[in-house]
Protein backbone atom coordinates (compact mmCIF):
# COMPACT_ATOMS: atom_id res chain seq x y z
CA UNK A 1 0.00 0.00 0.00
CA UNK A 2 2.85 2.34 0.89
CA UNK A 3 4.39 1.52 -2.44
CA UNK A 4 1.24 2.64 -4.24
CA UNK A 5 1.09 5.95 -2.40
CA UNK A 6 4.83 6.47 -2.79
CA UNK A 7 4.52 5.74 -6.49
CA UNK A 8 1.71 8.24 -6.86
CA UNK A 9 3.66 10.84 -4.93
CA UNK A 10 6.76 10.10 -6.96
CA UNK A 11 4.77 10.50 -10.19
CA UNK A 12 3.56 13.91 -9.05
CA UNK A 13 7.07 14.91 -8.02
CA UNK A 14 8.58 13.77 -11.28
CA UNK A 15 6.02 15.72 -13.27
CA UNK A 16 6.15 18.77 -11.01
CA UNK A 17 9.93 18.91 -10.89
CA UNK A 18 9.83 19.08 -14.67
CA UNK A 19 12.32 16.20 -15.05
CA UNK A 20 13.05 16.62 -18.77
CA UNK A 21 13.61 12.91 -19.28
CA UNK A 22 10.12 12.01 -18.08
CA UNK A 23 8.54 14.59 -20.36
CA UNK A 24 10.68 13.42 -23.21
CA UNK A 25 9.72 9.76 -22.70
CA UNK A 26 6.04 10.61 -22.31
CA UNK A 27 6.05 12.81 -25.39
CA UNK A 28 7.89 10.16 -27.39
CA UNK A 29 5.40 7.49 -26.29
CA UNK A 30 2.50 9.67 -27.36
CA UNK A 31 4.10 10.57 -30.68
CA UNK A 32 4.96 6.99 -31.57
CA UNK A 33 1.56 5.61 -30.52
CA UNK A 34 -0.41 8.31 -32.31
CA UNK A 35 1.64 7.95 -35.49
CA UNK A 36 1.09 4.20 -35.43
CA UNK A 37 -2.65 4.45 -34.84
CA UNK A 38 -2.99 7.16 -37.49
CA UNK A 39 -1.27 4.99 -40.09
CA UNK A 40 -3.33 1.97 -39.06
CA UNK A 41 -6.52 4.01 -39.29
CA UNK A 42 -5.69 5.47 -42.68
CA UNK A 43 -4.93 2.05 -44.12
CA UNK A 44 -7.28 -0.05 -42.04
CA UNK A 45 -10.55 1.78 -42.52
CA UNK A 46 -10.50 1.84 -46.36
CA UNK A 47 -9.48 -1.82 -46.41
CA UNK A 48 -12.14 -2.66 -43.83
CA UNK A 49 -14.79 -0.91 -45.94
CA UNK A 50 -13.58 -2.76 -49.01
CA UNK A 51 -13.68 -6.17 -47.32
CA UNK A 52 -16.98 -5.35 -45.64
CA UNK A 53 -18.92 -4.23 -48.67
CA UNK A 54 -17.54 -6.19 -51.56
CA UNK A 55 -17.56 -9.89 -52.28
CA UNK A 56 -14.66 -11.59 -53.99
CA UNK A 57 -13.19 -15.08 -54.01
CA UNK A 58 -10.97 -15.78 -51.02
CA UNK A 59 -12.58 -13.03 -48.97
CA UNK A 60 -13.58 -15.34 -46.13
CA UNK A 61 -10.11 -16.80 -45.88
CA UNK A 62 -8.68 -13.29 -45.87
CA UNK A 63 -11.01 -12.39 -43.02
CA UNK A 64 -9.81 -15.44 -41.10
CA UNK A 65 -6.24 -14.19 -41.37
CA UNK A 66 -7.27 -10.68 -40.35
CA UNK A 67 -9.06 -12.09 -37.33
CA UNK A 68 -6.00 -14.13 -36.37
CA UNK A 69 -3.97 -10.95 -36.78
CA UNK A 70 -6.08 -9.29 -34.10
CA UNK A 71 -4.48 -11.67 -31.63
CA UNK A 72 -0.98 -11.54 -33.11
CA UNK A 73 1.40 -11.63 -30.15
CA UNK A 74 3.45 -8.42 -30.22
CA UNK A 75 6.68 -10.32 -29.61
CA UNK A 76 5.99 -12.32 -32.78
CA UNK A 77 5.48 -9.07 -34.69
CA UNK A 78 8.66 -7.77 -33.08
CA UNK A 79 10.65 -10.83 -34.05
CA UNK A 80 9.57 -10.68 -37.68
CA UNK A 81 10.33 -7.01 -37.95
CA UNK A 82 13.73 -7.55 -36.33
CA UNK A 83 14.59 -10.21 -38.88
CA UNK A 84 13.59 -7.90 -41.73
CA UNK A 85 15.39 -4.87 -40.35
CA UNK A 86 18.63 -6.16 -38.98
CA UNK A 87 21.80 -5.44 -40.88
CA UNK A 88 21.89 -8.83 -42.57
CA UNK A 89 18.15 -8.68 -43.33
CA UNK A 90 16.39 -7.61 -46.55
CA UNK A 91 15.82 -4.04 -45.29
CA UNK A 92 19.11 -3.85 -43.40
CA UNK A 93 20.52 -1.07 -45.55
CA UNK A 94 17.86 1.32 -44.22
CA UNK A 95 19.36 1.11 -40.68
CA UNK A 96 15.90 1.20 -39.13
CA UNK A 97 16.41 -1.28 -36.29
CA UNK A 98 16.59 0.44 -32.89
CA UNK A 99 14.83 3.56 -34.18
CA UNK A 100 11.37 4.95 -33.34
CA UNK A 101 10.29 4.09 -36.88
CA UNK A 102 10.85 0.41 -36.14
CA UNK A 103 8.55 0.70 -33.11
CA UNK A 104 5.91 2.42 -35.24
CA UNK A 105 6.16 -0.42 -37.76
CA UNK A 106 5.66 -3.05 -35.06
CA UNK A 107 2.71 -1.16 -33.61
CA UNK A 108 1.09 -0.76 -37.01
CA UNK A 109 1.51 -4.48 -37.58
CA UNK A 110 -0.34 -5.37 -34.38
CA UNK A 111 -3.07 -2.72 -34.62
CA UNK A 112 -3.86 -2.83 -38.35
CA UNK A 113 -5.78 -6.15 -38.17
CA UNK A 114 -7.98 -4.70 -35.42
CA UNK A 115 -8.83 -1.67 -37.55
CA UNK A 116 -9.52 -3.73 -40.68
CA UNK A 117 -11.41 -6.47 -38.87
CA UNK A 118 -13.69 -4.28 -36.77
CA UNK A 119 -14.39 -1.85 -39.65
CA UNK A 120 -15.30 -4.66 -42.00
CA UNK A 121 -17.62 -6.15 -39.36
CA UNK A 122 -19.37 -2.82 -39.05
CA UNK A 123 -19.86 -2.54 -42.81
CA UNK A 124 -21.14 -6.10 -43.07
CA UNK A 125 -23.87 -5.14 -40.60
CA UNK A 126 -25.24 -2.50 -42.95
CA UNK A 127 -28.67 -3.47 -44.22
CA UNK A 128 -28.80 -4.31 -47.93
CA UNK A 129 -32.13 -2.53 -48.15
CA UNK A 130 -30.61 0.66 -46.88
CA UNK A 131 -27.93 0.48 -49.54
CA UNK A 132 -30.62 0.06 -52.20
CA UNK A 133 -32.63 2.93 -50.78
CA UNK A 134 -29.65 5.29 -50.79
CA UNK A 135 -28.92 4.31 -54.36
CA UNK A 136 -32.55 4.79 -55.35
CA UNK A 137 -32.51 8.30 -53.95
CA UNK A 138 -29.80 9.05 -56.48
CA UNK A 139 -26.86 9.55 -54.16
CA UNK A 140 -23.45 9.72 -55.77
CA UNK A 141 -20.86 7.19 -54.57
CA UNK A 142 -19.13 9.82 -52.50
CA UNK A 143 -22.39 10.83 -50.84
CA UNK A 144 -23.16 7.21 -50.16
CA UNK A 145 -19.78 6.64 -48.56
CA UNK A 146 -20.35 9.67 -46.37
CA UNK A 147 -23.72 8.38 -45.20
CA UNK A 148 -22.31 4.94 -44.50
CA UNK A 149 -19.34 6.35 -42.59
CA UNK A 150 -21.67 8.42 -40.42
CA UNK A 151 -23.86 5.37 -39.95
CA UNK A 152 -20.92 3.27 -38.73
CA UNK A 153 -19.12 6.06 -36.86
CA UNK A 154 -19.58 4.46 -33.45
CA UNK A 155 -18.17 1.14 -34.60
CA UNK A 156 -15.27 2.70 -36.48
CA UNK A 157 -14.25 4.80 -33.51
CA UNK A 158 -14.55 1.71 -31.34
CA UNK A 159 -12.04 0.11 -33.70
CA UNK A 160 -9.71 3.10 -33.37
CA UNK A 161 -10.02 3.00 -29.57
CA UNK A 162 -9.28 -0.73 -29.47
CA UNK A 163 -6.33 -0.24 -31.80
CA UNK A 164 -4.95 2.60 -29.72
CA UNK A 165 -5.28 0.50 -26.57
CA UNK A 166 -3.22 -2.19 -28.18
CA UNK A 167 -0.61 0.25 -29.41
CA UNK A 168 -0.05 2.11 -26.15
CA UNK A 169 0.02 -1.11 -24.12
CA UNK A 170 2.59 -2.71 -26.40
CA UNK A 171 5.93 -3.56 -24.80
CA UNK A 172 7.38 -6.82 -26.16
CA UNK A 173 7.90 -5.64 -29.71
CA UNK A 174 8.98 -2.15 -28.67
CA UNK A 175 11.68 -3.70 -26.49
CA UNK A 176 12.87 -5.95 -29.30
CA UNK A 177 12.88 -3.58 -32.26
CA UNK A 178 13.46 -0.39 -30.28
CA UNK A 179 16.05 -1.67 -27.83
CA UNK A 180 14.92 0.68 -25.04
CA UNK A 181 17.68 3.11 -25.97
CA UNK A 182 17.90 6.12 -23.73
CA UNK A 183 16.94 9.36 -25.46
CA UNK A 184 15.96 7.51 -28.60
CA UNK A 185 13.59 4.57 -28.31
CA UNK A 186 12.86 4.47 -24.60
CA UNK A 187 9.10 4.69 -24.18
CA UNK A 188 6.92 4.45 -21.08
CA UNK A 189 6.25 0.70 -21.26
CA UNK A 190 9.88 -0.26 -21.86
CA UNK A 191 10.99 2.15 -19.10
CA UNK A 192 8.63 0.39 -16.70
CA UNK A 193 10.17 -2.99 -17.55
CA UNK A 194 13.64 -1.57 -17.08
CA UNK A 195 12.89 0.20 -13.79
CA UNK A 196 11.37 -3.02 -12.40
CA UNK A 197 14.49 -4.94 -13.35
CA UNK A 198 16.55 -2.23 -11.67
CA UNK A 199 14.45 -2.73 -8.56
CA UNK A 200 13.15 0.86 -8.69
CA UNK A 201 9.54 -0.02 -7.99
CA UNK A 202 8.54 3.49 -6.99
CA UNK A 203 9.73 4.92 -10.31
CA UNK A 204 8.01 2.06 -12.17
CA UNK A 205 4.81 2.84 -10.33
CA UNK A 206 5.13 6.53 -11.09
CA UNK A 207 5.57 5.72 -14.79
CA UNK A 208 2.54 3.43 -14.67
CA UNK A 209 0.42 6.33 -13.43
CA UNK A 210 1.73 8.52 -16.22
CA UNK A 211 0.93 5.98 -18.93
CA UNK A 212 -2.53 5.38 -17.48
CA UNK A 213 -3.18 9.11 -17.52
CA UNK A 214 -2.00 9.31 -21.10
CA UNK A 215 -4.24 6.41 -22.13
CA UNK A 216 -7.13 8.01 -20.25
CA UNK A 217 -6.79 11.38 -21.97
CA UNK A 218 -6.60 9.94 -25.47
CA UNK A 219 -9.39 7.42 -24.90
CA UNK A 220 -11.51 10.14 -23.29
CA UNK A 221 -11.21 12.31 -26.41
CA UNK A 222 -11.94 9.40 -28.74
CA UNK A 223 -14.93 8.27 -26.69
CA UNK A 224 -16.43 11.76 -26.69
CA UNK A 225 -15.92 11.94 -30.42
CA UNK A 226 -17.65 8.60 -30.70
CA UNK A 227 -20.60 9.49 -28.49
CA UNK A 228 -21.27 12.92 -29.98
CA UNK A 229 -24.86 12.91 -31.26
CA UNK A 230 -25.04 11.79 -34.83
CA UNK A 231 -26.11 14.17 -37.54
CA UNK A 232 -26.87 12.93 -41.00
Amino acid at each position, binding site marked *: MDLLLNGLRRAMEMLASGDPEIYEITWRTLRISL*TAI*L*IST*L*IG*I*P*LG*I*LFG*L*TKFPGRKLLLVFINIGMGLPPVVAGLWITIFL*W*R*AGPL*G*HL*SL*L*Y*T*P*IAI*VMAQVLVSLPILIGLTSSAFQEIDEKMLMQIRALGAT*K*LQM*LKILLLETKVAILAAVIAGFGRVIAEVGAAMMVG*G*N*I*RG*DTRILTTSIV*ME*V*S*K*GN*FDVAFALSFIIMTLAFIVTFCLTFLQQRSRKI
Partner: protein
Amino acid sequence: MNFKRLLSTSLIAFLLLFLAACGNTDSNKTKEAEKATAATEEQVEVTDLILATTTSTQDSGLLDELIPMFEENFPYKVKTVAVGTGQALEMGVNGEADVLLTHAPASEQELVDNGDVQNYKRVMYNDFIIVGPKADPAGVKGLAINEAFQKLFDSSAVFASRGDDSGTHKKELEIWKSINVTPTENASYLETGQGMGNTLQVAAEKQGYVLTDRATYLAQKANYPDMDIAIEGDDALLNIYHVMEVDPAKNEQINNDGAKAFVEFIVDEDTQNFIEEFGKEEYGESLFYKYTE
Protein backbone atom coordinates in the same frame (compact mmCIF):
# COMPACT_ATOMS: atom_id res chain seq x y z
CA MET B 1 -14.14 3.86 -57.77
CA ASN B 2 -14.33 5.63 -54.47
CA PHE B 3 -12.73 2.79 -52.64
CA LYS B 4 -9.84 2.91 -55.02
CA ARG B 5 -9.56 6.62 -54.52
CA LEU B 6 -9.71 6.21 -50.77
CA LEU B 7 -7.10 3.52 -50.96
CA SER B 8 -4.74 5.59 -53.01
CA THR B 9 -5.32 8.62 -50.81
CA SER B 10 -4.50 6.65 -47.71
CA LEU B 11 -1.44 5.16 -49.35
CA ILE B 12 -0.22 8.62 -50.24
CA ALA B 13 -0.94 9.78 -46.70
CA PHE B 14 1.02 6.83 -45.37
CA LEU B 15 3.96 7.66 -47.60
CA LEU B 16 3.86 11.29 -46.56
CA LEU B 17 3.79 10.29 -42.92
CA PHE B 18 6.67 7.94 -43.44
CA LEU B 19 8.68 10.64 -45.13
CA ALA B 20 7.79 13.06 -42.39
CA ALA B 21 9.00 10.54 -39.83
CA CYS B 22 12.24 10.03 -41.74
CA GLY B 23 12.66 13.75 -42.18
CA ASN B 24 12.13 14.17 -38.50
CA THR B 25 14.98 11.87 -37.55
CA ASP B 26 17.15 13.56 -40.13
CA SER B 27 16.55 16.92 -38.59
CA ASN B 28 17.24 15.41 -35.18
CA LYS B 29 20.50 14.09 -36.47
CA THR B 30 21.42 17.46 -37.89
CA LYS B 31 20.62 19.03 -34.58
CA GLU B 32 22.87 16.57 -32.80
CA ALA B 33 25.51 17.10 -35.41
CA GLU B 34 25.29 20.82 -34.83
CA LYS B 35 25.63 20.30 -31.13
CA ALA B 36 28.68 18.13 -31.62
CA THR B 37 30.15 20.61 -34.06
CA ALA B 38 29.68 23.36 -31.57
CA ALA B 39 31.45 21.24 -28.99
CA THR B 40 34.39 20.15 -31.09
CA GLU B 41 34.41 23.14 -33.42
CA GLU B 42 34.92 20.79 -36.32
CA GLN B 43 32.70 19.69 -39.16
CA VAL B 44 32.21 16.14 -37.94
CA GLU B 45 29.07 14.24 -38.67
CA VAL B 46 27.53 12.39 -35.75
CA THR B 47 27.03 8.71 -36.50
CA ASP B 48 25.24 5.99 -34.59
CA LEU B 49 27.24 3.47 -32.63
CA ILE B 50 25.50 0.32 -31.43
CA LEU B 51 26.86 -0.95 -28.14
CA ALA B 52 25.67 -4.42 -27.16
CA THR B 53 26.28 -5.00 -23.51
CA THR B 54 25.12 -6.90 -20.48
CA THR B 55 22.24 -5.88 -18.25
CA SER B 56 24.51 -5.42 -15.23
CA THR B 57 26.26 -2.38 -16.72
CA GLN B 58 22.88 -0.77 -17.37
CA ASP B 59 21.03 -1.90 -14.24
CA SER B 60 23.83 -0.64 -11.99
CA GLY B 61 23.54 2.78 -13.62
CA LEU B 62 27.17 2.87 -14.81
CA LEU B 63 26.34 3.35 -18.49
CA ASP B 64 24.01 6.23 -17.76
CA GLU B 65 27.12 8.09 -16.59
CA LEU B 66 29.70 6.78 -19.05
CA ILE B 67 27.75 7.19 -22.30
CA PRO B 68 27.12 10.95 -21.95
CA MET B 69 30.85 11.37 -21.15
CA PHE B 70 31.73 9.52 -24.33
CA GLU B 71 29.19 11.34 -26.49
CA GLU B 72 30.46 14.67 -25.25
CA ASN B 73 33.97 13.97 -26.44
CA PHE B 74 33.41 11.93 -29.57
CA PRO B 75 31.12 12.46 -32.58
CA TYR B 76 29.04 9.34 -31.97
CA LYS B 77 25.54 8.74 -30.73
CA VAL B 78 25.62 5.55 -28.70
CA LYS B 79 22.69 3.20 -28.95
CA THR B 80 22.98 0.92 -25.97
CA VAL B 81 21.26 -2.42 -26.27
CA ALA B 82 21.40 -4.06 -22.85
CA VAL B 83 20.86 -7.80 -23.15
CA GLY B 84 22.43 -10.92 -21.68
CA THR B 85 26.08 -11.51 -22.55
CA GLY B 86 25.12 -14.52 -24.71
CA GLN B 87 22.84 -12.38 -26.86
CA ALA B 88 25.32 -9.50 -26.94
CA LEU B 89 28.04 -11.81 -28.25
CA GLU B 90 25.62 -13.26 -30.78
CA MET B 91 24.89 -9.73 -32.01
CA GLY B 92 28.62 -9.34 -32.50
CA VAL B 93 28.90 -12.57 -34.47
CA ASN B 94 26.01 -11.45 -36.70
CA GLY B 95 27.46 -7.99 -37.16
CA GLU B 96 24.37 -6.38 -35.59
CA ALA B 97 26.43 -4.35 -33.12
CA ASP B 98 29.58 -2.25 -33.50
CA VAL B 99 31.18 -2.68 -30.10
CA LEU B 100 30.63 -5.15 -27.26
CA LEU B 101 31.10 -4.85 -23.50
CA THR B 102 30.56 -8.24 -21.89
CA HIS B 103 31.69 -10.49 -19.06
CA ALA B 104 32.14 -14.09 -20.15
CA PRO B 105 35.87 -14.46 -20.93
CA ALA B 106 35.66 -18.09 -22.09
CA SER B 107 32.90 -17.38 -24.63
CA GLU B 108 34.55 -14.12 -25.67
CA GLN B 109 37.81 -15.93 -26.39
CA GLU B 110 35.98 -18.06 -28.97
CA LEU B 111 34.92 -14.91 -30.83
CA VAL B 112 38.46 -13.58 -30.69
CA ASP B 113 39.82 -16.86 -32.04
CA ASN B 114 37.25 -16.91 -34.85
CA GLY B 115 38.10 -13.36 -35.84
CA ASP B 116 34.55 -12.14 -35.12
CA VAL B 117 35.94 -9.41 -32.88
CA GLN B 118 39.20 -7.49 -32.61
CA ASN B 119 40.99 -5.10 -30.28
CA TYR B 120 39.88 -7.23 -27.32
CA LYS B 121 40.68 -5.40 -24.09
CA ARG B 122 40.15 -5.97 -20.40
CA VAL B 123 38.17 -3.14 -18.79
CA MET B 124 37.15 -3.74 -15.21
CA TYR B 125 36.18 -6.38 -12.73
CA ASN B 126 34.03 -6.96 -9.75
CA ASP B 127 32.98 -10.25 -8.34
CA PHE B 128 30.07 -12.59 -8.23
CA ILE B 129 28.53 -13.37 -4.88
CA ILE B 130 25.97 -15.84 -3.63
CA VAL B 131 23.07 -14.08 -1.99
CA GLY B 132 20.61 -15.98 0.15
CA PRO B 133 18.07 -15.58 2.94
CA LYS B 134 19.47 -14.15 6.19
CA ALA B 135 18.32 -17.28 8.03
CA ASP B 136 20.52 -19.39 5.71
CA PRO B 137 18.29 -22.51 5.55
CA ALA B 138 20.86 -24.47 3.55
CA GLY B 139 23.66 -23.60 5.94
CA VAL B 140 26.15 -22.49 3.30
CA LYS B 141 27.34 -19.23 4.78
CA GLY B 142 31.07 -18.84 4.56
CA LEU B 143 31.70 -22.19 2.87
CA ALA B 144 34.05 -22.58 -0.09
CA ILE B 145 32.19 -22.16 -3.35
CA ASN B 146 32.30 -25.79 -4.51
CA GLU B 147 31.26 -27.12 -1.15
CA ALA B 148 28.45 -24.61 -0.96
CA PHE B 149 27.12 -25.49 -4.41
CA GLN B 150 27.19 -29.19 -3.54
CA LYS B 151 25.25 -28.45 -0.36
CA LEU B 152 22.74 -26.32 -2.26
CA PHE B 153 22.28 -29.13 -4.75
CA ASP B 154 21.68 -31.67 -1.98
CA SER B 155 19.28 -29.44 -0.05
CA SER B 156 15.74 -28.49 -0.92
CA ALA B 157 16.55 -24.79 -0.78
CA VAL B 158 15.41 -22.80 -3.79
CA PHE B 159 18.15 -21.72 -6.18
CA ALA B 160 17.18 -19.07 -8.72
CA SER B 161 19.20 -19.21 -11.91
CA ARG B 162 19.24 -16.60 -14.68
CA GLY B 163 18.84 -19.37 -17.26
CA ASP B 164 19.36 -16.85 -20.06
CA ASP B 165 22.85 -17.62 -21.35
CA SER B 166 24.14 -14.41 -19.78
CA GLY B 167 27.63 -13.99 -18.37
CA THR B 168 26.30 -14.64 -14.88
CA HIS B 169 24.47 -17.75 -16.05
CA LYS B 170 27.60 -19.02 -17.79
CA LYS B 171 29.57 -18.52 -14.59
CA GLU B 172 26.95 -20.42 -12.59
CA LEU B 173 26.95 -23.33 -15.03
CA GLU B 174 30.74 -23.38 -14.88
CA ILE B 175 30.59 -23.93 -11.13
CA TRP B 176 27.96 -26.67 -11.38
CA LYS B 177 30.07 -28.34 -14.01
CA SER B 178 33.18 -28.17 -11.85
CA ILE B 179 31.45 -30.27 -9.18
CA ASN B 180 29.87 -32.57 -11.78
CA VAL B 181 26.22 -32.09 -11.02
CA THR B 182 23.24 -31.24 -13.22
CA PRO B 183 21.41 -28.57 -11.26
CA THR B 184 18.09 -29.14 -13.04
CA GLU B 185 17.89 -32.54 -11.32
CA ASN B 186 17.04 -30.65 -8.16
CA ALA B 187 13.33 -29.80 -8.17
CA SER B 188 13.86 -26.54 -6.31
CA TYR B 189 16.21 -25.18 -9.01
CA LEU B 190 14.44 -22.39 -10.94
CA GLU B 191 15.39 -20.77 -14.21
CA THR B 192 13.89 -17.32 -14.63
CA GLY B 193 15.16 -16.55 -18.11
CA GLN B 194 15.29 -12.89 -17.09
CA GLY B 195 17.80 -10.21 -16.18
CA MET B 196 19.74 -10.00 -12.92
CA GLY B 197 17.37 -7.61 -11.19
CA ASN B 198 14.32 -9.75 -11.92
CA THR B 199 16.11 -12.92 -10.88
CA LEU B 200 17.15 -11.32 -7.58
CA GLN B 201 13.51 -10.44 -7.02
CA VAL B 202 12.41 -14.00 -7.67
CA ALA B 203 15.07 -15.35 -5.30
CA ALA B 204 14.09 -12.88 -2.58
CA GLU B 205 10.40 -13.62 -2.99
CA LYS B 206 10.96 -17.38 -2.80
CA GLN B 207 13.58 -17.06 -0.04
CA GLY B 208 16.13 -18.80 -2.21
CA TYR B 209 19.79 -18.48 -3.16
CA VAL B 210 21.08 -16.74 -6.24
CA LEU B 211 24.40 -16.06 -7.94
CA THR B 212 24.64 -12.37 -8.78
CA ASP B 213 27.24 -9.83 -9.73
CA ARG B 214 28.06 -7.58 -6.82
CA ALA B 215 27.19 -4.37 -8.64
CA THR B 216 23.57 -5.29 -9.28
CA TYR B 217 23.12 -6.59 -5.75
CA LEU B 218 24.61 -3.49 -4.12
CA ALA B 219 22.49 -1.23 -6.29
CA GLN B 220 19.29 -3.04 -5.25
CA LYS B 221 20.21 -4.21 -1.75
CA ALA B 222 17.73 -1.86 -0.11
CA ASN B 223 14.83 -3.76 -1.71
CA TYR B 224 15.79 -7.05 -0.07
CA PRO B 225 16.05 -6.60 3.69
CA ASP B 226 15.72 -10.36 4.29
CA MET B 227 18.62 -11.27 2.02
CA ASP B 228 22.30 -11.20 2.72
CA ILE B 229 25.58 -12.21 1.11
CA ALA B 230 26.20 -15.89 1.86
CA ILE B 231 29.45 -16.46 -0.02
CA GLU B 232 32.01 -14.02 -1.37
CA GLY B 233 35.67 -13.63 -2.05
CA ASP B 234 36.36 -16.95 -3.77
CA ASP B 235 38.81 -16.77 -6.66
CA ALA B 236 36.38 -18.68 -8.85
CA LEU B 237 33.92 -15.83 -8.48
CA LEU B 238 35.92 -13.14 -10.24
CA ASN B 239 33.78 -11.27 -12.79
CA ILE B 240 35.85 -9.72 -15.56
CA TYR B 241 34.51 -7.34 -18.19
CA HIS B 242 36.05 -6.98 -21.63
CA VAL B 243 35.41 -4.55 -24.46
CA MET B 244 35.89 -5.43 -28.14
CA GLU B 245 35.28 -4.14 -31.66
CA VAL B 246 33.16 -6.20 -34.01
CA ASP B 247 35.06 -7.23 -37.14
CA PRO B 248 34.25 -4.40 -39.61
CA ALA B 249 34.43 -6.83 -42.54
CA LYS B 250 31.11 -8.35 -41.43
CA ASN B 251 29.04 -5.73 -43.22
CA GLU B 252 29.29 -2.20 -44.54
CA GLN B 253 27.24 -0.63 -41.80
CA ILE B 254 29.58 -1.43 -38.96
CA ASN B 255 30.85 1.76 -37.40
CA ASN B 256 34.42 0.68 -36.74
CA ASP B 257 35.78 4.18 -36.11
CA GLY B 258 33.18 4.58 -33.40
CA ALA B 259 34.00 1.18 -31.94
CA LYS B 260 37.70 2.06 -31.87
CA ALA B 261 36.97 5.35 -30.17
CA PHE B 262 34.79 3.61 -27.59
CA VAL B 263 37.45 1.03 -26.75
CA GLU B 264 40.05 3.77 -26.38
CA PHE B 265 37.68 5.82 -24.26
CA ILE B 266 36.79 3.05 -21.85
CA VAL B 267 40.37 1.94 -21.15
CA ASP B 268 41.53 5.54 -20.81
CA GLU B 269 43.01 6.38 -17.41
CA ASP B 270 40.41 9.06 -16.61
CA THR B 271 37.50 6.82 -17.52
CA GLN B 272 39.03 4.00 -15.48
CA ASN B 273 39.29 6.24 -12.45
CA PHE B 274 35.72 7.31 -12.95
CA ILE B 275 34.55 3.68 -13.13
CA GLU B 276 36.27 2.89 -9.85
CA GLU B 277 34.75 5.92 -8.14
CA PHE B 278 31.29 5.13 -9.50
CA GLY B 279 28.79 4.26 -6.77
CA LYS B 280 31.37 4.52 -3.98
CA GLU B 281 29.59 7.36 -2.31
CA GLU B 282 26.14 5.81 -2.54
CA TYR B 283 26.95 2.21 -1.69
CA GLY B 284 30.06 2.58 0.42
CA GLU B 285 32.20 0.55 -1.97
CA SER B 286 33.05 0.51 -5.65
CA LEU B 287 30.68 -1.39 -7.93
CA PHE B 288 33.44 -2.01 -10.47
CA TYR B 289 37.24 -1.89 -10.16
CA LYS B 290 39.59 -0.75 -12.90
CA TYR B 291 41.42 -3.59 -14.54
CA THR B 292 43.14 -2.69 -17.78
CA GLU B 293 46.05 -4.61 -19.19
